C-alpha cells in the first residue's frame, strides 16, 4: 500500500470514528435515553392500527413536558408506521409498526403544544388518509 493510500485510509478511519462517536453520544438528544440511560417511562400509551385506522387510547394522549412516555404500537393486519409531527410538519420521531409484535419507543417531549400522529409506512392506497391531527397534547 502506497503512502497516499495509507493517508487516505487514515482520513476515512478518523471520519468513521468521529461521526459514529458523535451520533451515538447524547449530543443527539434522544440517544441519551434510547441508548444510554434507558429510563423507566412514567406513562405508557397503547396505539392500535387496523384497517387504515389509528386507534388512540380512549382518553386521548396527554403528557407532561419533560416526562418519559412510552408508546406501545400494535397492528392487526399489515405494517404501518407511528410518526409524531409538530404543527409545522417536522417529524419528532417515528417507528415501524410490525404486525405480530409489540413495537415500543420511549420519548420525552420538551415543548408543550399539540402534535399530529401520522402513519409513516405505506399500507395500501388509503395510506395518505392515516393522520390524526392534535392527537397528542403536551402540557407544561
Amino acid at each position, binding site marked *: *500500500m*502506497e503512502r*497516499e*493510500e495509507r493517508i*487516505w*485510509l487514515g482520513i*476515512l*478511519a478518523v*471520519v*468513521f470514528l468521529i*461521526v*459514529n462517536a458523535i*451520533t*451515538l453520544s447524547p449530543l*443527539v438528544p*434522544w*440517544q441519551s435515553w*434510547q*441508548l444510554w440511560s434507558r429510563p423507566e417511562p412514567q406513562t405508557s400509551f397503547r396505539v392500535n392500527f387496523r384497517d387504515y385506522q389509528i386507534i388512540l387510547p380512549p382518553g386521548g394522549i396527554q403528557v407532561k413536558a419533560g416526562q418519559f412516555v412510552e408508546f406501545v404500537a400494535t397492528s392487526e*393486519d*399489515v*405494517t404501518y*408506521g407511528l*410518526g409524531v*409531527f*409538530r404543527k*409545522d*410538519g*417536522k*417529524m*419528532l*420521531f*417515528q*417507528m*415501524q409498526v*410490525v*404486525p*405480530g*409484535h*409489540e*413495537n*415500543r*419507543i420511549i420519548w420525552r417531549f420538551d415543548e408543550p403544544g399539540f402534535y399530529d400522529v*401520522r402513519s*409513516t*409506512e*405505506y*399500507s*395500501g*392506497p*388509503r*395510506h*395518505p388518509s392515516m393522520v390524526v391531527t392534535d392527537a397528542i397534547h403536551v402540557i407544561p
Partner: protein
Amino acid sequence: MRPMDWTAKWTLRFVVMALLFLVLTTIEGEMMRVQLANPEALRSFEALMNALRPIENAPTTEELYYAMLSVHPVVGIYGFVYMAVMGAFYFLVPYLLQREVRHKSLVRVNFWLQTLGVFLCWAAGFFGMFNALYTLYWPLPVSFDRVPVVGAIVFTLGAAIVMVNILIFAFNIFGTVFGKTNGKGYTVGGFLRAAFGIPRLLKLLGREDKSAPNLDYNGLPPFIVAVARGSIDTVINATVLLSAGALILVYALAHVMGRSLNPAAIDALLYKNWYWWGLDMVADGNVLIYTAGVWYLMIPMLTGRRLYAESVVRTVIMVDLLVSMGVWSHHLLGDQVQPLSMRLISGQFITWGEIFTMGLTIFASMMTIWKARPVKISIPLLFILGSIFGFIMGAAAGIIQANVGLNVVLHNTQWVIMTHAHTLLLMGLSTLLFGVIYALLPLLTGKPVFSQKLALWHFWLWMGGAFTMTYVMGMAGTHGMLRRTLYPHPNLYQVYLNGAMIGGIVLAIGFIIFLVNLVATLKWDTLRRLIHDPEPALSAD
C-alpha cells in the same frame, strides 16, 4: 457503412431496449412528481388512461399513484439498468478476455426474457393496479382487500422471469470469465456452489473440491474481477427475491382457488430481514461493485494510464462482498423490534464499512486521473467524473441516515428516497451508463457521436436537474415530508415540491437531448437493421 458484428448488434439491441425502459420510467417519474405537487393535476389524463384498463370501477388517484410507484423502480432498475449492464458486459467481457461469450444463445434468451419480465411487472401496475410497492412488506402483498390478486400474480410472475433471467446472465458471464481457466466448462450446480463460496469454504475445511471453477482471479483485469464478484451478489439477490415471489404466488393462487392461507403464519419481521438481505445485494452489492469495475475499466482506458493501486483495488473488491452481505439492517433501523445489536452492528457499523470500500475505490479512480495529467476531459470521462460526484453525494446522504440516532427523524422521509437513492441512481449510476454508451458507440458502430455540444448540454442539464430535484426534496425530507405519501394541495412542503418539479423538467430536457443525439448518431438505418437484419448462424455453444 461497415457491417456490425453479432456482439455489437446484440449490445446495441440491449442499449436501445434499456433506453426505451428509461423513457418509460422517466415519464412515470415526471407524472408522479406532478401528482405529488398537486394530486388533482392529472385528472383528465387519468380518465384517458382509464379507458384503456379492463376494470369496471375507475381507480382513485391514490390507486393510480401507488400502482405507478410500485412498477417505477422495477422498470428503472431491471428494465433500464440491468438491460444496459447486460448489453455492456456481453460486449466488454469477451472484448477484454479476447474470447467469445460462453453461451451465445443465452444472450438472445436474456434479451427477450428481461424484456418480457419487466413488461409483465409494468402491466401488473398499469392494468392490474398492483400497488404493494417494491418493498413487498409482509403481509401487504397478500392482503387482497388492498392489493388486487390478479395484479399480484402477474407482478410476481414477471419478477420471477426477471430473476431467473438474471441467474442465467450471471451463469453466462461466469462461464465466459472462467470457462477456460480449468480447461472445461461447468454445470449450473457448480456455478451456484461457486457463487455462494462453498468450494472456498470446503478448501478452508481441508476438503478441497478439485472440480470447482478456479475463482482466484489471478491475472484477470480488475473490471473482470468486479464483474465476477458482483455476480455473486446478483445470484443471492435473485435467489432471495425468487423465494419471496414464490411465497406471494402461493398465497395468491390459494386465494383465487377460494382457500385463503393465513398471512400470520409468516413472521413479518423475519420475512423483512430475509427480503432486505437479498434486495440489498443490489443496492449495496452489485450496483457498487459493477460501478467500481466500470470505473476501473473506463478511467485507465480514457486517460491512458494504468489503474492506480491495482493490488489494493483487488482486495477491496473481495472485502466488499463481506460488507454487502452484512448491511441489510440499515433498512430496519426504524423497526424497534429489530434487536438493537443488529441495528447497531449491521445497520450502522458494517454499513459504514462502505466508506472504506467505496472511499478506496473513488480514491484509486481519482488518483489514476490525477497521475495521468494532463488529461483531456472527453465526453465519456466527463460523465465518469459526474458519476463519481453522484456516488459521493448519494453515499454521503446514505451513511448519514444509516445511523441508529439520525434514522429516528430520517426514516421513510424524502431524504431517503431522493437525496440518497435518486442521487445515486440519477447522478451516479445513470450518468455512468451514459458515459459507457458514449464510449462504446464509436466502437460498436464505427462512427463518432453526432454532436459533442449536444452531449455537453445533456450532461449539464441532466446533472443540474437531478441535483436540484434530489436536494430540494431532501430538504423537504428534513422538514418532515414522508416518502410514499400524497399530501393534499397546497401543503406544508409545497415550495419544495414546486422546486423539485422544475428540476425534474430540466432533467427530462437533458434526456431528450441525449435521445436526439443518439438517434442522429445511429441513424434510422442502423436502428432498422437492429430489427430486420437476419441473424448469422451461431457457432455451437
